[in-house]
């Protein structure tokens, strides 16, 4: 398919300008699309994961169907995440991931089943074992299907090609090429959220000791995964450390120092960092001022007050938020246009803004298009 060229800047230029806290030609728009093509195009969710050619084709189709947007995902990228042979929260070899074609119908989207209270992936006594032996003892290579492992290298090559195609042919950046995991999130997923919340009260010193031990390796693991797929952009996320989950005291002790170290290192190493911060961060936004200025983008959903975020972080970090995913299923184009205009009115000044949201896999296309079109018309910066 051909690139869409009708605006003064390319998407790559637009996105990088906004991230550098300067005004591009218009506000960049990013619908975070995962499996939306499954509903509208001849592709299954299973193919979206396992077939990099087919998923690239589907992503290009929806990009054109929606008239073009500013950030894409490379076809095949999701596969690499799920067949990671090392103990990782996305790896289907370790946790109860329900994937299309494996425990799910081929058209259902993947979901992670939370670890059970009684028999989680790691036990309390394993905190000490991790400090003693690292994470690799958790790896069971018999568990990793040989067929998948053989495919990994081949698919990696294709993902790198697809990534390159977005950047140079379409001149659209790909985001989420790789991902970094903080110890806090890793342990919460391995223990199960409820068990981990009890651990926070019962064994805080152990959590800190394991986190100190793991952080440098987890930072490297993120970079390694990224380079395998030939990417430039890295996602770090943290739903479980927000104000919907933990206190400021626990955030300061158990989460922030490690997150800050990870993000700062990725920026220093020249990667484009996207912070994916779902749920409510409003009461802890000021911490993000400690991160490098003008280098990072921060996604928030409707639970964080984006106007407060603009006030606190506007001269420091490029932000996106305030659009509720379910609105793209239940709402109307007029409702979305109204909300997008309000975000642009209050947050676009001086750059540092993307408009976007996570798009549910059953969203209405006209709603997604309304967000994109409003940015292309109403979101133009007038010089």
């Amino acid at each position, binding site marked *: 398919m051909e690139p869409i060229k009708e605006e003064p800047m390319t998407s790559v230029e637009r996105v990088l300008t906004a991230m550098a806290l300067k005004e591009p030609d218009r506000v960049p728009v990013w619908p975070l699309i995962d499996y939306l093509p499954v509903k509208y195009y001849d592709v299954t969710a299973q193919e979206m994961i396992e077939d990099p050619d087919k998923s690239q084709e589907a992503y290009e189709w929806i990009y054109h169907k929606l008239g073009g947007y500013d950030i894409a995902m490379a076809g095949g990228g999701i596969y690499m995440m799920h067949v990671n042979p090392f103990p990782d929260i996305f790896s289907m070899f370790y946790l109860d991931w*329900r994937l299309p074609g494996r425990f799910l119908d081929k058209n*259902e*989207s993947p*979901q*992670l*089943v*939370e670890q059970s*209270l009684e028999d989680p992936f790691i036990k309390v006594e394993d905190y000490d074992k991790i400090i003693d032996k690292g994470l690799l003892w958790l790896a069971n290579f018999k568990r990793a299907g040989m067929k998948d492992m053989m495919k990994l290298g081949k698919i990696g090559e294709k993902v790198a090609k697809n990534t390159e195609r977005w950047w140079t042919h379409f001149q659209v950046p790909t985001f989420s090429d790789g991902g970094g995991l903080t110890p806090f999130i890793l342990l919460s997923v391995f223990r199960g*959220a*409820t068990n981990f*919340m*009890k651990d*926070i*009260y*019962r064994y805080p010193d152990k959590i800190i000791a394991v986190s100190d031990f793991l952080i440098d390796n987890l930072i490297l693991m993120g970079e390694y995964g990224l380079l395998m797929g030939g990417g430039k952009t890295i996602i770090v996320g943290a739903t479980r450390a927000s*104000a*919907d*989950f*933990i*206190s400021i005291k*626990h955030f300061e002790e158990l989460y922030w120092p490690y997150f800050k170290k990870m993000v700062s290192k990725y920026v220093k190493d020249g990667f484009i960092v996207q912070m994916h911060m779902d*749920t409510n961060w409003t*009461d802890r936004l000021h911490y993000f001022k400690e991160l490098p200025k003008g280098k990072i983008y921060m996604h928030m959903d409707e*639970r964080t007050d984006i106007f407060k975020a603009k006030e606190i972080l506007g001269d420091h970090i490029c932000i996106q938020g305030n659009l*509720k*995913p*379910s609105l793209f*299923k*239940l*709402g109307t184009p007029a409702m979305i246009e109204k909300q997008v205009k309000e975000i642009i009115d209050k947050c676009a000044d001086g750059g540092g803004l993307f408009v976007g949201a996570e798009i*549910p*896999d*059953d*969203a209405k296309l006209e709603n997604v298009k309304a967000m994109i079109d409003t940015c292309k018309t109403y979101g133009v910066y007038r010089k």
Partner: protein
Amino acid sequence: METKEELIQAVVELEEQKSYSLVKALLDEGVNPKEIIDILRKGVEIVGERFNKKEYFLTELVMAGEIFQQSAKILETAMKEETETSESLGVVVIGTVKGDVHDIGKNIFVTLLQAAGFEVHDLGVDIAAEKFINKVKETKADIVAYSGLLTVALDSMKETTEALRSAGLREKVKIIIGGLPVDEMWMKEVGADAYTDNAFEGVKTVTNWLKEG
């Protein structure tokens, strides 16, 4: 401070071991286990208030629920010796609906419902309409609670309400939906009576329903 006051305080400050010691001490003093349960409830109630004021977070709700549950276990043996059975506030059937497996919030809601004195039947995750119907029939439930995070849950919640209607059960139960994204739009779409993204408030809502009778 009186031991009873001390126990409330220990629960509120989430001092786990101290709470258990005090529960045992009260039992030794000969305090009726039911009264001890009420004291624990009072503590959980104050934790919930702090949660609403954003002084406490989900972690604290989980811990308060844990302290309540573990204390109830200590009291169980003593309770069994009591001749009269304690009456439940009402019967709740709950589950994360079909197509969705998220259950962090649901599990906390279940614990708080139990702490408040409800008989709770937790069906688990990815629950089809039919399973809700069967359980409602079997338990003569007063309240049905759907949990969900993804938009796919919206369709399943709607189907479950329709199935309740077809089975002639809709008028016999009240429906509450819960999850971080649920809002008035979700509630109307699903045909529920209430929605909440706050487990503690959700318990208040269903308690009020039963009080209104």
